[in-house]
């Protein structure tokens, strides 16, 4: 009586597809696989999606913030970016001393223009 259980399990494991059934199913499955193959590229999209989105966000940030900062006026957060990041970087691209002087004059004019814009905004 004790080995009824083992006997039952052994018997149950004998239930399976016949050779013909298995072959037929395999054939149907192969046909279905060939009619609907795996896409070649879509599978790669998943592994690249996250890095792609992150890179895009970084690029937008690096390009967008300085562009917006160009028009900023004193007292706004972007003005700090303009003063401490954008302009010093622009200055490093100026090579000769003469051009550097010109650049600094440009900066001075800019400060003046900003002051005038602020004054105009505040109704002076």
């Amino acid at each position, binding site marked *: 009586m004790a080995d009824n259980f083992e006997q039952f399990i052994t018997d149950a494991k004998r239930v399976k*597809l016949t050779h013909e059934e298995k072959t037929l199913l395999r054939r149907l499955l192969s046909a279905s696989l060939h009619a609907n193959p795996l896409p070649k590229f879509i599978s790669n999209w998943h592994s690249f999606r996250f890095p792609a989105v992150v890179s895009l966000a970084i690029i937008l940030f690096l390009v967008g913030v300085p562009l917006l900062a160009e028009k900023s006026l004193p007292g706004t957060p972007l003005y700090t970016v303009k003063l401490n990041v954008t302009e010093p970087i622009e200055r490093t691209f100026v090579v000769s001393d003469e051009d550097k002087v010109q650049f600094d004059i440009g900066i001075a004019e800019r400060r003046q223009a900003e002051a005038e814009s602020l004054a105009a905004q505040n109704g002076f």
Partner: protein
Amino acid sequence: MKKDPSQIEQEFLQGYEQWSDAIFRHCFFRIGDRETAKDIVQEAFIKTWNYFRKGNEIDNLRAFLYRVANNLIIDWSRKKKETSLDMLMNQGFDVPVHEKNRLDLIIEGRQILPVLEKLDPKYRDVILMRYIDDLTPKEIAQVIDETENVISVRIHRGIAQLRKILQEKNYG
């Protein structure tokens, strides 16, 4: 790392060779009808293939196949609630025992089904998966969305119930 399509196809076909019999058993013991069980096996493999086609990855192909098959069985039983194993038996599904030898009956599952029919479905499923399909409790938990603990308890109680049924039926 992503597998390339030919590798996935190869693993998938190997999966068919390795597990189609077990998945078939899994379906057959729940459905009681060979033809329907074969249809479900086929559909389970095709659905799994389509899952790959959408670019998804599968960690444990075997457990995944069982899961898909299980869901298809649930769908099937919802649609065909009236076709119980009882009815199959009553409608002449049985061939008189003396006409066939015991081994034939076993292979066709006719010896097994009446026992399984008596077993509480919630125990039947885990017992079949554990002892006949040789899935680990962890894999069974994945297939039917339960915790490993629940599975272990069900296996334990299921064995007790099954032993009792086998004894009553004087199985063997």
